[in-house]
């Protein structure tokens, strides 16, 4: 028996009430669209100014649509989005990552957005669309793309007598002891269970040639030889004094963390704002932005930010107008400039900027947007706990990954 819940009944009641009470405005075709935006532009004042402008520009071009852009913090965003959708009181459009998009799609929280890209589908990076396409329907309109890469503190390497920055796993391992002798970890690693593995273990796994899931997503693949190699790389580094002492539990903050206070010499999968924080912490002259690290392969992490349409939206066409406008080349160029992000479409010039922006733009070609499957989050939580066990020295790389895989397979068999 399939039952529609109370939310639907309530929504229906509200719709009836709305129709009854707003006959005069309904005739005018006025639609309200609420968009939840997040601090993609990290500077609060700049963020408010930018989105106010977008709202004003959009409304002057579309007088029949009343757009409200609400700026929310990153913290606790899933709780807020989930409860808002469940309660039927929330945004029509919301900025999501691909992983979130799938999560909300399988739980019935989203509607497809193919209508927003009808005329411009070919302009987007194919990978940015693929990662939010489920069952042949598009669930997110990409408005920007993030990029991450390797960043070095050259002063720390030079103090240890190393002038050639390490670009491969072997180089990193070889450099570890000399830096450890100075009390410096060669590479930062954040094992806190609250951190996404997309910025810690997964890039290393991909660099080893492995993947989290098999091609069709029906099984996990991280327990193969590639996964073991990636974890063993971390354990070998740790053994050589090449990771921060609390690598198993630390968060990935650059500001106030080892990269920001000069006790770790390089970070992989760092974004533009983290480069800025590192420059502020250890001096811009000591910070060099390189290409993504190479194991068996050269890979890093980068994802599109997409606008998704919630199941509680009531004027889809108006929402499509908004999404289409914000993803348009004109807005995209300004957004990238303000946020330090990169274009998610091919008909937009890459942002001009300093060598960090250039290096990050170059790194885009190696960027993988994570592996998006219905159980990706649960599997990440399971794997994260076992990685901690390995980094704490209570399990070998093989055992930790085998235990995680066993647990993950149970999860997948149960369908999450």
């Amino acid at each position, binding site marked *: 028996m399939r039952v529609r*819940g109370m*939310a639907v009944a309530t929504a229906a009641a509200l719709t009836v009430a709305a129709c009854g009470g707003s006959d005069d405005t309904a005739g005018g075709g006025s639609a309200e669209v609420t968009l939840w935006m997040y601090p993609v532009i990290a500077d609060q004042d700049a963020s408010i100014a930018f989105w106010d402008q977008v709202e004003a520009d959009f409304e002057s071009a579309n007088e029949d649509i009343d757009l409200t852009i609400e700026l929310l913090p990153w913290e606790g965003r899933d709780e807020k989005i*989930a409860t808002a959708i469940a309660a039927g009181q929330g945004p029509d459009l919301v900025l999501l990552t691909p992983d979130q998009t799938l999560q*909300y799609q399988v739980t019935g929280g989203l509607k497809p957005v193919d209508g927003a890209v009808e005329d411009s589908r070919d302009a987007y990076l194919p990978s940015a669309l693929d990662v939010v396409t489920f069952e042949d329907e598009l669930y997110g309109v990409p408005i920007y793309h993030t990029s991450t890469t390797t960043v070095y503190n050259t002063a720390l390497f030079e103090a240890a007598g190393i002038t050639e920055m390490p670009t491969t796993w072997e180089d990193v391992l070889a450099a570890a002891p000399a830096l450890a002798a100075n009390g410096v970890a060669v590479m930062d690693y954040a094992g806190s269970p609250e951190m996404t593995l997309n910025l810690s273990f997964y890039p290393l796994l991909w660099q080893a040639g492995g993947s989290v899931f098999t091609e069709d997503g029906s099984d996990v693949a991280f327990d193969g030889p590639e996964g073991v190699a990636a974890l063993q790389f971390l354990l070998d580094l740790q053994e050589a004094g090449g990771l921060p002492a*609390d690598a198993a539990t630390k968060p990935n903050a650059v500001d106030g963390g080892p990269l920001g206070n000069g006790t770790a010499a390089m970070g992989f999968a760092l974004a533009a704002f983290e480069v800025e924080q590192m420059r502020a912490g250890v001096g811009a002259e000591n910070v060099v932005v390189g290409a993504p690290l190479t194991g068996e392969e050269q890979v890093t992490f980068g994802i599109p930010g997409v606008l998704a349409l919630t199941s509680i939206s009531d004027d889809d066409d108006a929402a499509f107008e908004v999404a289409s406008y914000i993803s348009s080349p004109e807005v995209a160029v300004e957004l990238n400039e303000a946020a330090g992000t990169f274009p998610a479409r091919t008909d937009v010039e890459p942002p001009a900027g300093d060598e960090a922006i250039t290096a990050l733009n170059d790194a885009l070609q190696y960027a993988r947007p994570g592996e998006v499957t219905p159980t990706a989050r*649960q599997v990440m939580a399971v794997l994260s706990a076992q990685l901690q066990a390995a980094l704490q020295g209570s399990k070998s790389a093989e055992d930790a990954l085998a235990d995680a895989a066993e647990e993950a397979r149970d999860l997948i068999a149960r369908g999450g």
Partner: protein
Amino acid sequence: MTVHRPAAPRPSWRQRARDPGWGLLFVLPMLVLFVIFRYVPSLGAVGMSFTDYRLSGEFTFIGAENYERLFSDDLFVDSLRVTLLYALIYVPLTLVVSLATATMLHHVVRGRGLFRGLLFLPYVTSFVMAGIIWTWIYQSDGLINGLLERVGLGPAPFLTGNQAMVLGSLAVVSVWKSFGYSMLILLAGLKNIPGDVMEAATLDGAGAWGKFRRITLPLLKPVVFFVVVIETIAAFQVFDTIYVMTGGGPARASYGLVYMLYDQGFRFFDFGYAATIGVVLFFVVFLISLVQRYVLDRENT
């Protein structure tokens, strides 16, 4: 009624005010709020635990499937064990600390209000702030480890070590945060002990410890029982400490029941399963309270 007993005097306003109906009227506003915001959601959660409730509000009744899944879920067994272990550390510790501070306050002659306020302060501080600061205190290069280093001791892995160490460290923070409330309850209990009983004991030549053990504690038993019960419930509901300080880690060393509930509900959006954990948590706490009541009552007689 007045028709059949015309001789009876009309009840006075005072007598009518004692009528239970009036009392109900006075508590009605609170009762309504309680029913709307406590009982209805609680019953809703019980109902939800028999469904696969989704974000969109769409669901299917799946009977006891969530419960079957829960009882065969190793993660549930693990998190129940973590919660029990945490309660075993937290409840005795908080009882000892609140009893000790209450006894001290009871004997303070001057500035009682000041000391009481100072000791109660942690209870009214924002836990998230306190949690972040405690995380710094516990860090490998934090306050405690810095002091340990000065006396030549290696860094202690407070939040990164083995399970007993992590849960112990978290329990200390929770005790620091919440002993004030139990302290006040125990202090009120201490003040209710008649002075003449103490006087008689002193005349009989009882020492301070003897008086505490043989007179204060037995007379305080109902209050202690209450404190043990509410602190046990608090221990089972622990979430904020773990959320702010360890995120359930390292390697699930502090992955308690409520943290599992949070993960299932708000990270994985499996609301039905999360509700199931909530219902089971309720019964676990209920059962433990019954056992505690039985044990402490039996000792009383």
